[in-house]
């Protein structure tokens, strides 16, 4: 049972009481008639052999309101692609698998490169982007929902709650982000708790009130990988292909839509997924790479909105962040104590130290090359440069799935 406090400039939809999934799904079936819903699933083949995927398929098999499921399969051989298809077969919704390493989709990526579009390295961002492209190419769905494929505690209630605000024509939301608590025997979700939120607060302290910072600060879980949006948004938004995906996407949403049309929804009582390992030194790996990318993405967005990043500002940011993060640790220590959760203060402090280094690295990278952008161009631009691209993509995927 959560509170009903409205956070910041966007709408927050809480989980109040025990709601009936049966009712939400019945309503979604109605909504789906006017706003068909597509589900995009970026996945690695290795996830099919992991603990989460069987549960996700078992749950999706019971979902009736979806119009289509587009699974983008990365790092898979031809045989593995076939196995993945077999694996998805219990699902009655039409499932299309985009086989990133297949010869047809590879040819599509080559076409982008030939025409000077950098679609980035493989990863969730690129997978999400190509999934949007396919949904746009088919033009059959009005809503796109997306979530990861490594959620061990997946329940179709998550999906239903995620889709509801955007699919419901009476609510008029264009973008909806999922949030949840990340509790096992201890508090997880360190990057959000100890990096993003303290850094946003530190930045607000340094540069004063700022619309984007206020927007970002309104999200209870800005790094959650689950969201839904109207298909139109997928057409105009650019998305980063690096770890800045979540924050970068929010920046694009903020740029294109009024906060009034953005909401966040409580999708799960509990959430567990594969954890990233914190490699304190290597900036190109794991959590460290992720944090550097996230910071760069925030700096870039702010710079584009007219914030001047000087050397002094970065120095103050480091100190100010550290203060904020330390205060945050104390808050969470108390929060963990009253809820009887394990809390390793040293581990948290080590993480903050690593995050401080990450901010410094990001600042350096930003100063060296402020223009370096990992954003994949939006589909409007791509389709105007390569007019037949949608047909090509549709053909490639449909042929692969025959």
């Amino acid at each position: 049972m959560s509170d009903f406090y409205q956070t910041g400039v966007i709408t927050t939809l809480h989980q109040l009481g025990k709601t009936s999934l049966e009712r939400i799904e019945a309503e979604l079936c109605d909504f789906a008639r006017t706003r068909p819903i597509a589900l995009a699933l970026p996945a690695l083949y290795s996830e099919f052999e992991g603990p989460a995927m069987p549960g996700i398929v078992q749950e999706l098999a019971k979902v009736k309101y979806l119009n289509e499921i587009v699974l983008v399969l990365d790092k898979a051989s031809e045989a593995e692609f076939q196995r993945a298809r077999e694996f998805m077969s219990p699902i009655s919704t039409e499932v299309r698998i985009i086989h990133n390493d297949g010869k047809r989709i590879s040819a599509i990526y080559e076409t982008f490169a030939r025409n000077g579009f950098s679609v980035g390295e493989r990863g969730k961002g690129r997978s999400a982007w190509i999934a949007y492209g396919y949904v746009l190419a088919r033009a059959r769905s009005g809503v796109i929902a997306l979530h990861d494929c490594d959620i061990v505690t997946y329940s179709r209630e998550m999906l239903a709650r995620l889709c509801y605000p955007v699919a419901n024509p009476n609510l008029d939301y264009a973008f909806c982000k999922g949030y949840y608590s990340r509790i096992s025997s201890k508090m997880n979700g360190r990057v959000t708790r100890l990096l993003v939120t303290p850094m946003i607060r530190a930045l607000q302290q340094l540069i004063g009130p700022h619309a984007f910072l206020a927007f970002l600060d309104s999200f209870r879980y800005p790094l959650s990988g689950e969201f839904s949006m109207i298909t139109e948004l997928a057409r105009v938004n650019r998305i980063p292909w690096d770890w800045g995906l979540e924050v970068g996407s929010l920046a694009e949403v903020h740029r294109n839509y009024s906060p009034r049309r953005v909401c966040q929804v409580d999708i799960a009582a509990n959430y567990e997924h594969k954890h990233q390992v914190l490699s304190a030194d290597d900036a190109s790996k794991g959590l460290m790479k992720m944090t550097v990318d996230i910071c760069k993405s925030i700096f870039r967005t702010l710079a584009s909105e007219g914030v001047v990043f000087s050397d002094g500002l970065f120095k103050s940011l480091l100190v100010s962040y550290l203060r904020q993060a330390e205060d945050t640790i104390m808050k969470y220590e108390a929060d963990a104590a009253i809820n009887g959760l394990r809390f390793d203060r040293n581990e948290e402090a080590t993480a903050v130290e690593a995050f401080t280094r990450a901010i410094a690295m990001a600042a350096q990278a930003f100063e060296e090359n402020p223009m370096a952008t990992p954003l994949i161009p939006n589909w409007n631009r791509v389709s105007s440069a390569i007019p037949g691209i949608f047909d090509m993509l549709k053909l490639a995927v449909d042929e692969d799935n025959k």
Partner: protein
Amino acid sequence: MMNAVTLRTEVHEQVEKIGSADIVVGIPSFNNANTISHVVRAVQAGLAKYFPTRRAVIVNSDGGSSDGTMEVVRNASIEDFSAILLHHRVEPISRIAFPYSGIPGKGSAFRSIFEIARTLEAKACVVVDSDLRSITPEWIELLVKPVLEDGYDYVAPLYHRHKFDGTITNSIVYPLTRALYGKRVRQPIGGDFGFSGRVAGFYLSKDVWESDVARFGIDIWMTTTAIANGFRIAQSFLGAKIHDAKDPGADLSSMLYQVVSANFDLMEEYAGVWMPVHGSEPVPTFGFQYTVGLEHVPVNTGRMLGLFREGLNNLREIWLGILGAGDFREVERLGALADDAFCFPIGLWTRVIYDYAIAFHHNKLPPEHLIKSLTPLYLGKTASFILAAANMEGAEAEAEIEKLCKAFEDNKEYLVMSWSKHKGDQT
């Protein structure tokens, strides 16, 4: 065993003496001395009244009763035929009573009846329970006539029952069988059936008589086998079904296990038949339907809901594995409802049954554990139905069951899609 063999030859001699017959009426029994004489007399009267020119045999296949059931069968007779007869009986009615051999169970009893029917080259067979108190001579007519005169192969019964009776039939067996095979046979496990000699021969040709079918689940096996193999099906309205109280010590979860596992086993065998079926169609119904009043039946729904919540507390891991996180949370939500607000959504119930069928198919748990773990959920569903139907007329309650069947049919795609995944592929 030696004993059984000698008796079998004895039976054979008797059968050979009779030579051939048009109608064979089989009555399986086990310690039913109290009720069986009424059943035998009703059958005799029915045969005499409606089939005076047909040669008929009454076969009592006994499971080794110790209360003289077979003696009662041999001696039961109607003193004054003129009281009920319109015609003079032309053909005599033979009687055979013997203990069957093989695995103890109703299935083995039926096997002997089928064998005798085959040897006698019977055109029509009827089986009726030996504990019936409400059987009338008309039952024989209603179960035999569609076979002899209208060319039907299998006649299922249709009873008028109390709205709270037959809950396993109403919430699992009927909706599931109907959704699977597309025939609206209202009482697939009624226990009183009519069928042609052809079907009896077909049953005998099936290699099931050393399996669980011999012990229990013969009723659903007969009905499903007849439907799935494309025989012509009908049902006859027999009126009320009143029979001796079942063994009060009989454990509900064992009963559930027997009935549901028989259903699930048949799903394995006839997967190719039920998968392509969409929707359902009514089957021709004989007999004049009428309603009788409902007496008040006290049911302790509090106890049922208590067991349901107990199951929720203790079987969490098992249910979560079978139902998946989404539906398990729905069940959990039900656990928090107050008794008078309790309502088991029918969509959820269909998914529960389908999930159990899929878990059975994929061997997620040992079959007996699996199906017995369904008991608390079944009790929850039953309590919900009883609460909802408390103030309903019989027809309204029947409409509720119709809604449930519709939900089973609508959700069938989920079952079909999840089933097609190969066995042993769950890693």
